[in-house]
């Protein structure tokens, strides 16, 4: 059951990225291009996505348990600390540079194997490099 839910979640997420055009790096860069030909479309992705996600969160909280009887969200960090700020700065620079964030990079793998493959491979190196060398 967990696997079915997870597969469904992944498929919905992948479909959403594809439909919204987030799998086109130019679309993402145009959203960030406020000093040029700005395309505000991606505001609508967040504007629709956040309230729907918030409903799921609210339902989880008000029920006090999850449908699959898993523990509720176990997040520990609460402060805006240095790694959060530094990491977000670096991520944003990369996001603007390539027009890919992690989801669209993975979601583009089968349709644009060369470009998305290069991005994902470099992302893997960056992630493992961070986890093994910086935070170890």
């Amino acid at each position, binding site marked *: 059951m967990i696997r079915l839910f997870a597969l469904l979640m992944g498929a919905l997420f992948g479909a*959403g990225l594809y439909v919204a055009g987030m*799998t086109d790096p130019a679309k993402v860069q145009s959203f960030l291009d406020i000093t040029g030909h700005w*395309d505000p479309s991606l505001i609508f992705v967040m504007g629709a996505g956040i309230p729907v996600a918030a409903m799921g969160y609210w339902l*989880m909280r008000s029920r006090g348990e999850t449908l699959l009887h898993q523990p*509720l969200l176990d997040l520990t960090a609460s402060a805006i600390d240095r*790694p959060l700020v530094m990491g977000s700065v670096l991520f944003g620079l990369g*996001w603007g*540079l390539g027009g890919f964030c992690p989801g669209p990079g993975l979601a583009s793998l089968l*349709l644009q194997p060369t470009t998305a493959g290069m*991005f994902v491979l470099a992302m893997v190196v960056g992630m493992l490099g961070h986890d093994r060398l910086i935070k170890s």
Partner: protein
Amino acid sequence: MTEFTPISAAVGGGLIGLSAAIGYLALGKVTGISGIFGRALNGDMGFGQWGLFFLIGLIGMPAVMHALAPSEHGFTAPAPVLVVLAGLLVGVGTRMGSGCTSGHGICGMARLSIRSVAATVIFVGSGVVMVAVLRHVFGVIA
């Protein structure tokens, strides 16, 4: 330069939000791609290997959609050297900052997490700076 497409953006955003809502409601988890993928790289697929099945759906579905109902959007990527550099920055940055556009931008914003609001403001900000530099300093963006 791309066209303004609010309807497909909102439909896509709704689907992404639905995925995140199920993540909270059914699994009690944050549907953050850098977290799911990063943990998987370190051999942690989550309970019931849900991370692995999520990634299969995420990677497979766009290809299914493309075959059945191709989207109106194209695919234009920067030069390979920029894509590789971008991948490195995104990899290090998302692991250091504990999240990306999905985990912070959608899931975290949805529960009004102060960390996620801060992260989202910061990464959109540095993304805007990067694109402005690409456009005005290097003339890479049309």
